């Protein structure tokens, strides 16, 4: 009896990953991809995306939910890369320079985002979501109208022929996969970008260490209960802003890593969906709005990307139309986020009513005695 309960509980707590394992298990044989192809793709995508997804962990720790505002960091990374390719800085130095350049931009954007989220406590997620749209407008204003006219941009491969604005795609051919290829190892036909994984490991270690620092503890306290934290003498507003700034800076780095792998910037669309996909991947790994671990990130990337690779082909095999699979994977991404949000909110409500009942019970007992 008890054992059965345990199994059920495990199933309930891990609905999303189990669902994904089933989807992948069904789709992989249908798609007909070879194992080595799949492995190659997944390893590449792990290197490309894990850093970005890890950027989401810190705001979750401080109770601010899924940071849809990580798009801001992605924009900062893109702006930095635009400058770097305008100045024709190539290779690893280019990547390092872009990361450094993205820091001040990320800090400004992150502080702005954090300030606004402090004004909208209790609905951080929808607000950060709208901030990402709002900033997209500002980003366009800067990149499409101010770069080249006010902000000096001179290289013809970056600038639009009309004299101002940045081209739709900016080629990063000269730094394409330079991180991934340095120290790359081939194991049974699978290229492993060791350096990129080393950087990711470093970030993981940083996050583990950071959780134990004073600031990390403060963040967790703020995430547990803002009022209690404030009573304990923690500057709640400042802590929250720092957590968003850190997330934004990391997202900026992540975007640089992501784009050096892709080899070009889609100036006006690269960042628009990145937040959504990263969040979906994290949730697929079994994370929830208030709890996420590094393990969730890794599992999520593997499962989500397996689905992403095989779905179009499997869809085409079943229905004869490749678009079905494309739509299917977009649908699944959204559905996973919806499901996770619903589960989180119902849990929060249940918890609330439980607390209220407890309070009532205590009051009753107090008045009885």
């Amino acid at each position, binding site marked *: 009896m008890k054992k059965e309960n345990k199994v059920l509980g495990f199933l309930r707590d891990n609905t999303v990953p189990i669902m994904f394992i089933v989807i992948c298990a069904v789709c992989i044989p249908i798609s007909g991809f070879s194992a080595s192809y799949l492995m190659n793709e997944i390893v590449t995508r792990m290197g490309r995306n894990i850093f970005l997804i890890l950027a989401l962990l810190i705001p979750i720790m401080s109770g601010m939910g899924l940071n849809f505002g990580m798009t801001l960091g992605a924009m900062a990374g893109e702006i930095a890369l635009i400058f770097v390719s305008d100045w024709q800085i190539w290779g690893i130095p280019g990547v390092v320079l872009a990361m450094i350049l993205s820091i001040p931009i990320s800090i400004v954007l992150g502080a702005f985002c954090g300030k*606004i989220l402090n*004004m*909208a*406590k*209790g*609905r951080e*997620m*929808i*607000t950060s*979501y*709208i*901030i990402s*749209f*709002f900033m*997209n*407008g*500002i980003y*366009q*204003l800067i990149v*499409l*109208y101010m770069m080249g006219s006010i902000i000096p941009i001179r290289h013809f491969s970056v600038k639009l022929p009309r004299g101002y604005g940045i081209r739709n795609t900016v080629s990063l051919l000269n730094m394409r996969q330079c991180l991934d290829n340095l120290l790359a190892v081939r194991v049974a036909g699978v290229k492993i970008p060791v350096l990129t994984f080393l950087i990711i490991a470093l970030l993981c270690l940083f996050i583990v260490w950071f959780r134990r620092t004073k600031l990390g503890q403060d963040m967790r306290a703020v995430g547990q209960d803002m009022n209690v934290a404030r009573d304990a003498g923690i500057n709640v507003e400042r802590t929250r802003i720092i957590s968003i700034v850190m997330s934004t800076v990391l997202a900026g780095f992540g975007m640089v890593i992501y784009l050096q792998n892709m080899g070009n910037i889609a100036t006006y669309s690269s960042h628009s969906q990145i937040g959504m996909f990263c969040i979906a991947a994290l949730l697929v790994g079994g994370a929830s709005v208030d709890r996420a671990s590094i393990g969730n990130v890794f599992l999520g990337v593997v499962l989500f990307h397996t689905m992403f690779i095989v779905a179009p082909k499997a869809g085409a095999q079943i*229905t004869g*139309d490749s*678009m*079905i699979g494309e*739509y*299917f994977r*977009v*649908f699944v991404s*959204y*559905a996973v*986020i*919806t499901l996770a*949000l*619903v589960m*989180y*909110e*119902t849990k*929060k*409500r249940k918890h609330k009513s439980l607390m209220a009942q407890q309070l009532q019970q205590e009051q009753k007992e107090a008045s009885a005695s």
Partner: protein
Amino acid sequence: MNETLDKTNLTLRDRLRGFVDSFGLPRLIIAAFLLMLYIAAPFVGAGFWMQISNTVNRFSWNAIMVLAMVPMIHSGCGLNFGLPLGIISGLLGATLSIELGFTGPTSFLMAILIATPFAVVLGMGYGWLLNKIKGGEMMIATYVGFSSVSFMCMMWLLLPYHSPTMVWGYAGKGLRTTISLEGFYDKVLASFLQINIGGLSIPTGTLLFFALLAFGMWAFLHTKTGTAMTAVGSNPTFAKAAGVNVDRMRMLSVVLSTWLAAIGILVYEQGFGFIQLYMAPFYMALPAVSAILIGGASVNKASIANVIIGTFLFQGIVTMTPTVMNNMIHMDMSEVIRVVASQGMILYALTRKTEATK
């Protein structure tokens, strides 16, 4: 004499400040910006009457979708970011009406009739979900909208539609991304009693249709059920104590909102002349949300006047900025201005402390 002048000056300033506070700075900036556009329009050679007709036309297309925001704001469910769900019901009505062979004005009527049960059923499911997650409505609404749109993307391809006006010619199946409404209900409302004076053309029928629905909404909000709904929004505990079934009221408001969105998209289509499927409804909630906020609504307060003012201001900016900006500075910055203005307005509304959820 001097003293009284001073006094009035002071009160005037105070009143001005009070006015700015109550009206909201962003709203004021947007209204002033639109006013400036109208003043500038004749100087830069953009026909004034044409601009007015454009604005009025676009107002008539969009107003009902903005009106759909009202019931959910009243019942405390917040801004309906899940508008695409209602839009999908409308699209189902539209495509099924054509598929079943209706043409002309009948097809519009049938589209509304067919869309209604879809809107009610989907709205009930959506309302049930929102009742389970009170307090987190807006984020979940957004994602319900997104999931439903991407789900329907698959369905538009898979559902067995056959009408040759709608499916891809070469494959014989799968709906097209845009479907022309010529011969169906293109401009059925707009051409009814249409007024044309010189460059000015007013789609009277569409405006009347909107007026009818807006009046209906106004009247509904003043019935017993309507006031109960408002009570649920402004003070749920009190409403519960007064014997109002909170969940039922919220459900009703969601169904109403979804149905209005379905009608809204049909009216939009008849003005626009095309049905847009697939990803088109994806971001349609955002303009409607920002329109009602620009009109003076907040996350938990909205009136019919907000709808009318807001839609007019928003559509005014949408129609005016491209022409005026292009003529003035030879840069088409309208897209940027629209995004910044509308999203900024939503952000402003979300960050108002007085309106934060408790």
